[in-house]
């Protein structure tokens, strides 16, 4: 047993860090440092920088054109991105549709789509959730009726991440209404420019437009755009839900939130000194760091298990999700506490510039409350904390379903 990274792994970490220092555009880094949103152009540009280096698709094997990294390398790569902080590769492309095409796609689909996915030539979004099907995904009702060599799709998809930027959507649709819940579902690739498809923004409580509702009104989708067999779409869904979740704990993000909180605390007053000297603030930060340290080892244990058991999903990744979110939320609360009243002004990212006076001294604090706000969603999406605890209780501890 040796809990340390190997020399190669440590060298790899330094290589990634050096790459980020050299290659991440300054404008993007500045935005990331202040938790600001990126434009579509920035995201695309960065994805292509990564792709030129061969690092745009960390989880892909070499046969798909990926780097063929070990789980530990993938972890190190993501952790460095999170701590730097630098943007992750677009997950809908890289972690979702890419592996689906790689695993279930026809040879033609693989050859045509994988390189475009990696290079963000096509931006993908996900069409899974519906107004009546959230945690209970298999309750979805969007219908796809076969007419010749097309499906005619009708329904509503919710919570589409970045749907307004996307060129393509991968969606679960019901192709056999008579079959029982999980059966009768198929997996389709839908062109976002299709007639009858409309995208309606959902603004989240951080004021951002990142998710959408997509209405499908007699949208015609070629049968050739189905992945995997008809009525076997649930296989794909299960594959995606149980898919590798390296870095799901997002420890590096929590570390960066803490770093930002400490930097602010060093500048705001508290009693006779600054907040960073307040013993209660310090112990609260230390408490989060202790938990992060433990979670980092837990993460390593899960990774080691994955390496040993050929990437079979580990139900313990539910622990990573639950604790990782909890700590990210806790770190964001500490950040908000540090900013205190300075967090109130909301101008900056989303408001039109103030005509009277271009910027307040505290504009840097304008993203802090939104970070705290929107991180509440992290315990909801991607398998809510409640769902993860159900999994742990039933799948790991064997309590009755």
């Amino acid at each position, binding site marked *: 047993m040796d809990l340390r990274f190997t020399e190669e792994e440590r060298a790899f970490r330094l290589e990634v860090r050096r790459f980020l220092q050299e290659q991440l555009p300054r404008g993007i880094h500045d935005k990331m440092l202040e938790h600001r949103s990126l434009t579509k152009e920035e995201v695309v540009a960065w994805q292509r920088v990564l792709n030129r280096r061969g690092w745009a698709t960390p989880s892909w094997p070499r046969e798909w054109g990926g780097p063929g990294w070990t789980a530990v390398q993938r972890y190190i790569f993501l952790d460095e991105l999170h701590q730097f902080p630098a943007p992750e590769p677009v997950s809908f492309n890289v972690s979702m549709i890419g592996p689906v095409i790689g695993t279930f796609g026809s040879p033609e689909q693989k050859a045509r789509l994988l390189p475009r996915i990696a290079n963000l030539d096509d931006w993908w979004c996900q069409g899974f*959730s519906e107004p*009546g099907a*959230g*945690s*209970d995904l298999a*309750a979805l009702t969007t219908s796809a009726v076969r007419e010749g060599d097309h499906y005619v799709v009708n329904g509503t998809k*919710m*919570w589409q991440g970045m749907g307004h930027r996307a060129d393509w959507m991968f969606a679960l649709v019901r192709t056999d209404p008579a079959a029982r819940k999980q059966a009768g579902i198929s997996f389709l690739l839908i062109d976002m420019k299709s007639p009858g498809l409309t995208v309606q923004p*959902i*603004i*989240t*409580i951080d*004021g951002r437009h990142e998710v959408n509702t997509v209405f499908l009104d007699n949208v015609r989708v070629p049968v050739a755009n189905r992945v995997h067999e008809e009525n076997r779409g649930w296989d794909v869904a299960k594959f995606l839900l149980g898919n590798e979740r390296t870095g799901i704990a997002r420890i590096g993000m929590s570390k960066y939130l803490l770093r930002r909180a400490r930097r602010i605390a060093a500048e*705001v*007053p*508290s*009693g006779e000194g600054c907040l960073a000297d*307040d013993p*209660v*603030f310090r112990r609260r930060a230390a408490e989060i760091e202790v938990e992060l340290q433990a979670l980092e080892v837990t993460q390593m244990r899960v990774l080691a298990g994955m390496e040993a058991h050929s990437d079979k999903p580990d139900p313990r990744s539910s622990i990573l999700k639950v604790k990782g979110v909890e700590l990210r939320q806790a770190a964001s609360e500490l950040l*908000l*506490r540090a*900013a*205190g*009243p*300075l*967090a*109130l*002004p*909301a*101008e900056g990212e989303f*408001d039109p510039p*103030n005509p*009277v*006076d271009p910027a*307040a*001294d*505290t504009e840097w604090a304008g993203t802090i*409350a*939104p970070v*705290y*706000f*929107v991180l*509440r*969603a992290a*315990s*909801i*999406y991607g398998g*809510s*904390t*409640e769902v993860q*605890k159900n999994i742990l209780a039933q799948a790991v501890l064997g309590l009755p379903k």
Partner: protein
Amino acid sequence: MDFNLSEEQNLLKDAIDKLVLKEYGFEQRRRHAAHAEGWSRTFWAQLAEQGFLALPFAAEHGGLGYGPVELMLVMEALGRGLVLEPYLTTVVGAGAVLRQAASRAQLERMVPPIAAGERVVALALAEIQARYELNDVLTTASAAPGGYVLSGTKVVVTHGDSADLFIVPARTAGGRRDRDGISLFLVPAGAAGLRRRGYRTQDGLRAADLILDQVRVPADDMLGAAGQGLPALEQAADAVIAAVAAESVGCMQALLDLTVDYLKQRQQFGGPIGRFQALQHRAAEMLIELEQARSMALYAALMLQEPDPAGRRRALSAVKVQIGKSGRFVAQQAVQLHGGIGVTEEYAVGHYFKRLSMMEAQFGDGDHHLARLAQA
């Protein structure tokens, strides 16, 4: 001990509850917020018409002479409606300063237009270096012929961009954190040398920073004795905390109601999600926190009348600690139990969540007040 409302109080409560219910549905609120000032002059006029803006002022000055319990009833209703109008800063905050520090003549001049809804007065409590310390004042007021000249900056003055008049603490003597030497001034929004930077705040309200550059204030517009302004300011801050406690209770009650309704209606895995025990227990815990907060809002109303200022301040610190803790839990859990829609702008839950979060960050957060209690 008597927790019953008097008949008069019941009438008042009914009136404000009805008004908010009628005028402040979530969609109506969106329209109020869309005004340039971020709130509705029409609704403000309705509040005036029904006497709510006159509530805490003495009858002899044009008010109705009600006390903290009545303000609590109003604030709780405004909390339920997530009301945007400047009641907290004008009627509660500025109102408290005026009642404490203003002369009879000043009151007679100020109260009628406030009560009529014709004058919005904002209380400029904070400077940037002060964080939550009321006595940390760097803005200066130098004596000048016929009055004073004020220079300095006040930050995050709620409704500062639509206010007609400000109450501005400034130093006529002493150093940065001295308790003595702080004087209170009335400064009209149009005063020469006063610049305002307005902005939206994270809870959908608006605020402004005030930049005072050689603003001349006549001696008549000083409130109370020179250098003796802090006690009135502290009293006002405590009144604001009590009001924020009641507003928070209103928000939490609304969140609990929305959540329980959602749990009863939302279907998943073949039934309402409210049948799941883990969610039931969470709702029960929200109720417990709400009731603890409600108790503290009542306690605040009582303790505002405490004659010993140190005892009053301690009590109000305890109130703010509990309110912040309860509010944080209730808001976070309401969002969690709503799932996705809880984090959207389209749905009321997220707005209550944001308002509660921002109330925690103002007027001293839980850590600030807990440290005060722990020092005592």
